[in-house]
């Protein structure tokens, strides 16, 4: 039985940052970014890593999406929002407020 937390609703003004016990690293052995937590390793794709690198506690969710638009041709707002919600629910991200 794994613990489940309901998806927290967040608005565009949240300034997400990695929780203190979480590490975002590049893994040269796999050539991928990974998210490290006490009992889990999440291997990220390139977009996931790009999103998380923008989660610095300074940028709002809206600003994160805007920054991604500058880098990628097409950015699916809903997909980014779901990704952030999922990681917030897993307590990998904290929703800092500016």
């Amino acid at each position, binding site marked *: *039985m*794994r*613990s*489940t*937390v*309901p998806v*927290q609703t967040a608005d565009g003004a949240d300034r997400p940052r990695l*929780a*203190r*016990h979480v*590490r975002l*690293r590049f*893994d040269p*052995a*796999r050539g991928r970014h*990974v998210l*490290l*937590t*006490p009992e889990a*390793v999440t291997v990220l794709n390139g977009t996931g890593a790009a999103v998380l690198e923008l989660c610095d506690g300074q940028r709002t969710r809206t600003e994160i999406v805007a920054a991604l638009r500058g880098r990628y041709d097409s950015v699916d707002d809903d997909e980014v929002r779901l990704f952030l919600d999922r990681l917030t629910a897993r*307590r990998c991200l904290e929703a800092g407020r500016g």
Partner: protein
Amino acid sequence: MASAGVDAPFGLLAELTYRCPLHCSYCSNPLDLAAHADELTTAEWQRVLAEARELGVLQLHLSGGEPLLRRDLAEIVQCAAELGLYTNLITSALGLTPRRAEQLLAAGLDHVQISLQADEAALADRLAGTPSFERKLVAARLVKELGWPLTLNVVLHRHNADRIAAILDLAEQLEADRIELAHTQYYGWALRNRAGLLPSRAQLERAQGVVRAAHERLQGRMEVIYVLPDYHSRYPKPCMGGWGRRQLTVVPDGGVLPCPTAHTLPLPRASVRESSLAWIWESSPLFRRFRGTDWMPDPCRSCDRRELDFGGCRCQAFLLTGDAARTDPVCHLSPDHGLVAGAVAAADEGARTRDAVLAPRLYPAARRSR
């Protein structure tokens, strides 16, 4: 990185020493503790960690025995942190003084897990075989003060399964971020003490009710992880996520194992003192023996779940049937399931097993190496 069609491991469990100040009767360490007393040196561990990182390991779990009994623990942590490994200390917390905690923090330790035996001193100290409860609470508060995330590890059995609610209250008071409530797995000392440890079904049902309520109440504040006892399950646990598939263990004397209890199996040995970690992981007869599904007998071979539970636990199959290549007897489809069902039935009868004498885990003092 691992090659030859073998995926790279994610995690390394480093059992730094089998010495331990506690004497828990549910310990899964081997019975012949002193046979592994020739511990790796600091330099040897540093080499192992560098090899592990190169192989693709990302997480390092520092355990034992009691890892704090290694005076070089901070050096080992620092080496791991410099290599980019996520470091997780799994400890009784005895010996986690403010000075040592600060050294470990400075060395880059990411996360601390402290074991708790019960919610109050008398029972906890009896289960641990030594006065330890109050010191654990002091250390747990210290961990929070220093800003680490705190996980509490509680091994459940017949003597504390009815105290989960109080244990969760204590965890809340200590502001734990996570708590793992994991039923005893029957290896090593725990298997020897099985008759006195196995809970009854009635106890399990009560426990599940308490845990379900706690999940709701603590949502978003504390992560509650509940690991069911495999003896009471229909299917076996996917031990280590599959043999030689995601994790490896290095024991105090440098032996390398696919899981921390595989000492007992009659298989070829592998040691970092003789071979590289990469060769052991990818090519050693030990790691290849039960990798994948080709080794499986029926009912596993033709089972839809063969890639889900990998035939269960090889150590359990060996310990209960004498043959490591049989289906884990925990599975209700196993021809040997009666061995597990019999133990569970005895636990349900209750009174007689409740009073079974528990043999404490003892490290033979005369043969301590350092």
